[in-house]
């Protein structure tokens, strides 16, 4: 084993299970289960109708197998679609949150207790199928910002939800989006009114705890004219031998001159060294720059999951709108990731930037898949894409599939790609100056990812760097 290969294997830090009494509906999926979920959430009839429409469509669809990943068949009838802690607080009283849940999130670095809260960050904590706490709601309400679990929004802000839900990712968009539309349980809802710059970072932390369940959260963010919001999601799950399905949908809508910055630090359980267990992360994320001069920026740091399948994209409909995608994806052990973005240019003078950094170690397989589409009416559209891959060791792989579809001759497209290997020589050079092998690798990898990390909100940039350090620790000895 070379000194680099020896570095990858570090135990997953967030693999503990919370021993809590949960209500789990029996495994299986049918219309009754969907009615049950809708009933538990106290949903209006239109919501149930939408779910059933999605379900009936899903039955006619088949699982996509075009991604560059391999896994055994998923038994959708063996999954439980709803799990929730039995003792849930009343919505407006955070003090009643079960201490076990508080302790769980505290252990994950997400304090939800009043006195320990992260300053400047409002958090929605989702545990299995339900939101257990949302902080700073009252503070945000002073600015007219709505930040709440989506189940609450469906009851209390039905007009907004009905107006925008499914407008960016339709209920029949793809197999996993249809499944999500039928069974989604919780997730966050954000509305930022006209001209408001959201005073806090908004953040949702997703935790899977119960076994044999899937998590199907749905997030909807609407930034009204001239508003700004920065939102971050984090996630983790216990270590289990089984594979658990996580099929989320995220929809963003930016109206005229609005900006949405969406960051993800994804750290689902990746499975063990032999590839046993881990989360299947099959996610549909899309933003629509509906208004002129609007901007949506995706930043993702993907270190977890056994399999990742996600392409956060932007529909650049408004003239002069801007879409950005900054990604770091790490695959080690037997992890597989097929991830990238879609930039669809519709409006005039629309611009998109793609910066993707893939890091493969161990037996990891990392695929960048990206689509840049310039439609006929998109006069003067521009795209810049940069895809860099880094290989650590000689048993991993990096793959790049850029699709470019240009239908307007005024478009300007740039694409750069590189593949590099962390060399023994780079590590030796740093060690010769007095740095340990571990610090050397971490310095090289962080240097490689710098362009993406600088896009993260300050509070989380350090966390992301540490996370990367943890994922790769042990890959050099």
């Amino acid at each position, binding site marked *: 084993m070379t*000194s680099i290969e020896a570095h990858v294997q570090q135990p997953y830090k967030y693999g503990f299970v919370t021993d809590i009494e949960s209500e789990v509906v029996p495994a299986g999926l049918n219309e009754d289960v969907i009615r049950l979920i809708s009933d538990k959430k106290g949903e209006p009839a239109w919501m149930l109708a939408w779910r059933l429409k999605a379900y009936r469509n899903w039955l006619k669809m088949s699982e996509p197998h075009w991604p560059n990943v391999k896994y055994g068949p998923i038994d959708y009838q063996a999954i439980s679609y709803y799990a929730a802690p039995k003792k849930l607080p009343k919505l407006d009283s955070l003090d009643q949150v079960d201490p076990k849940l508080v302790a769980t999130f505290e252990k994950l670095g997400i304090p939800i207790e009043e006195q320990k809260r992260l300053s400047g960050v409002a958090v929605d904590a989702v545990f299995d199928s339900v939101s257990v706490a949302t902080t700073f709601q009252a503070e945000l309400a002073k600015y007219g910002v709505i930040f709440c679990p989506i189940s609450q929004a469906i009851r209390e802000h039905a007009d907004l939800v009905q107006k925008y839900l499914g407008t960016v990712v339709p209920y029949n968009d793809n197999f996993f989006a249809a499944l999500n539309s039928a069974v989604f349980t919780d997730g966050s809802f954000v509305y930022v009114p006209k001209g408001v710059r959201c005073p806090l970072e908004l953040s949702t932390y997703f935790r899977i705890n119960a076994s044999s369940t899937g998590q199907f959260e749905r997030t909807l963010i609407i930034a009204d004219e001239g508003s700004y919001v920065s939102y971050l999601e984090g996630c983790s799950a216990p270590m289990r031998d089984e594979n658990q399905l996580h099929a989320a949908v995220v929809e963003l809508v930016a109206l005229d001159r609005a900006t949405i910055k969406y960051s993800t630090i994804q750290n689902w359980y990746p499975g063990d060294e032999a590839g046993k267990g881990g989360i299947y992360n099959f996610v549909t994320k899309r933003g629509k720059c509906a208004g002129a001069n609007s901007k949506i920026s995706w930043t993702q740091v993907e270190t977890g999951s056994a399999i990742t399948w996600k392409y956060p994209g932007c529909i650049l409909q408004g003239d002069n709108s801007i879409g950005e995608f900054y990604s770091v994806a790490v695959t080690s052990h037997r992890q597989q990731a097929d991830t990238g973005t879609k930039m669809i240019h519709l409006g005039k003078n629309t611009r998109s930037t793609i910066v993707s950094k893939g890091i493969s170690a161990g037996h990891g397989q990392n695929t960048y898949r990206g689509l840049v589409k310039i439609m006929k009416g998109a006069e003067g559209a521009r795209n810049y894409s940069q895809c860099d891959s880094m290989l650590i060791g000689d048993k991993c792989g990096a793959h790049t599939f850029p699709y470019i579809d240009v239908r307007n001759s005024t478009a300007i497209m740039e694409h750069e790609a590189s593949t*590099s290997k962390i*060399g*023994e*020589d*780079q590590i*030796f*050079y*740093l*060690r*010769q*100056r*007095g*740095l*340990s*092998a571990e*610090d050397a690798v971490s*310095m*090289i990898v*962080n*240097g*490689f*990812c*710098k*362009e993406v990390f600088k896009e993260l909100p300050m509070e989380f940039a350090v966390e992301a760097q540490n996370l990367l350090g943890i994922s790769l620790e042990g890959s050099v000895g």
Partner: protein
Amino acid sequence: MSVGNVLLEVKDLQATVEGKTVLKGVNLTVNAGEVHAIMGPNGSGKSTLAQVLAGHPAYTITAGAVRYRGRDLLDMDPEERAREGVFLAFQYPIEIPGVNTTYFLKAALNEIRKHKGQPELDAIEFLALVKEKMKILHLPEDCLKRSVNDGFSGGEKKRNEIFQMAVLEPKLAILDETDSGLDIDALKVVSEGVNKLKRPDNAQFVITHYQRLLNYIIPDFVHVLFDGRVVKSGGKELALELEERGYESLVSHELQPA
């Protein structure tokens, strides 16, 4: 010539890389305050000797011993050697994209300081130190803001190596063909830098192909390495002799009596 305390003692050092024996029994003693030059033709083992002393993992030591300041050097990790004051100015400095030069050098210096039991320098103290050292090498300030060696010209890379040496203040500096790829002006700057860093308590170990460098860095001793062995040692006049007569004649002359 100064006769001080022994800094480095190499005895019958033998090393292989990828199954090929490159060092076949090297003997050398370096005292504090001395400048040694190692000369020799291509493939004689000069760079291997430098890499082996710094602890590059690609080389296997098959025989011999190296004592450094009274300790077994070969028993130490590369980073421990560095923290103990062994510095290698690379023949081909490695590029590390995205890693800021100042950040890297501050981390390195603080590792060394920690090892010595000295307090770590904060950003302000470090920058003051760096400003002072940069004058020695006439290094443009933007080199510090760039990634380590990334996009540096050949001359900038070599100057950056000596600049790092100035900041880290090693006890034993090994300069591996620092003159290669330098024009005459750059050579002068680098040599002046090296000379300014010379102190009674440290030693410099200069590996070079050509005598040219030794017009600027005056060695106390010159050793000729040939086929993995030191075949001749002498004073600075040996370098001139080599320049005039070439390695072949010297070596055949030396080897005949054997």
